[in-house]
């Protein structure tokens, strides 16, 4: 009887160990290959660079509505919030001052923007 119970304990432990091994392999060793992703999955530095691109374009064509539409590819966050996140990353990662100035201009413009194009 005792031997039978310990056998079941080993089986359950083996099952749990197998699940653990499977999860580790599937999540860490060989995770799913992704493609056709949406921009909100981009790494933070790519997101910040995208915000910088929009800021550079905004300097030449100061249309906050256009900038907001371009930033909208990141999903449900507000354009101002997306730009602010990019600016925060740029500050913490040592982007050049000139780039940070551009991004600040964009953030300020989006904060003031009503969301309705004139």
């Amino acid at each position, binding site marked *: 009887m005792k031997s039978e119970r310990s056998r079941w304990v080993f089986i359950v432990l083996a099952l749990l160990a197998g699940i653990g091994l499977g999860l580790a392999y599937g999540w860490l060793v060989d995770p799913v290959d992704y493609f056709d*992703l949406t921009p909100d999955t981009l790494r933070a530095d790519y997101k910040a660079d995208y915000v910088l691109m929009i800021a550079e374009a905004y300097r030449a064509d100061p249309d906050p509505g256009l900038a907001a539409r371009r930033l909208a590819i990141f999903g449900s966050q507000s354009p101002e919030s997306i730009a602010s996140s990019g600016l925060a990353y740029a500050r913490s990662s040592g982007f050049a001052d000139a780039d940070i100035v551009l991004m600040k201009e964009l953030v300020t413009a989006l904060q003031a923007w009503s969301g309705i194009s004139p």
Partner: protein
Amino acid sequence: MRRIPWDIVLALVVGIGLGLVYAWLISPMKVSNATPAILRADFKEQYRSAIAAAYAATGNFPRARSRLELLKDPNPEDALNTQAQQMLARGQSGQAADQVAALAHALTLGIEGAVPTSNPITEAVNQVEETNTANLEPASTEDLTFVGTETPSALPTDATQLSEATLIPRSTRTPLPTQGTPFKLTGKDEVCDSNLSDGLLQIIVLSSNRRQMPGMEIDITWDGGENQFFTGLKPEIGNGYADFVMTPDISYTVQLAAGSDIATGLIAPTCQTPNGENFHGGMKLTFQQP
């Protein structure tokens, strides 16, 4: 000799299977560090448009090229050209399409400053960058932190820097086609090919270095009518190719909207097949920027 505990081995295998099903199918690892190369095609297009808009604003070619490399397009120039044509065909903003096409053009020529800008600051930036190209060329494009910090060091932030920048002589540039330069009609040929549509008017627009130019508007007029069409809508034939089917016995006049020689008296010629049958041939016009 101890026998193998098959029930325990089986439990381990089943456990691994369950773990993999959960990790790969039910709850795969959430992606939060994707690269632009694995974005969906339409988002890649928006990414390219943003790169082109930034390039149009700053003229910073090394930075634009580094950003394009992140998308890992097999041929970035073709990808940009195709996108510009598709944007025009979809009736999207002509300015955005122009920016994409301009970046493709700059990429083709491999030079910076292909986009004219009225912004004196960016003009000065261009001058500074041209003198520092060797230092500014990115060695790797995988890490955007590098891209983000490489060129801005050259950005002038005060009047002193601007004035220093203007003293630096510009490097030699390859002349670029501009909209103000009229195109020359360099070819006007009758085409008798029974495999083509009757009365097919084929037009090819070339830059000064004989590159086909997409997105060029063509105006065609005839007695009692006119029409406009664009090059580049049939990229399988050529980026600078456009065509129009002429009605027999009607005389047409063609000119590029950007300014060109005027091709007049264009009438579908009468041709003969080897069997002696008559058919209406076409014409082929070639415009090139001097």
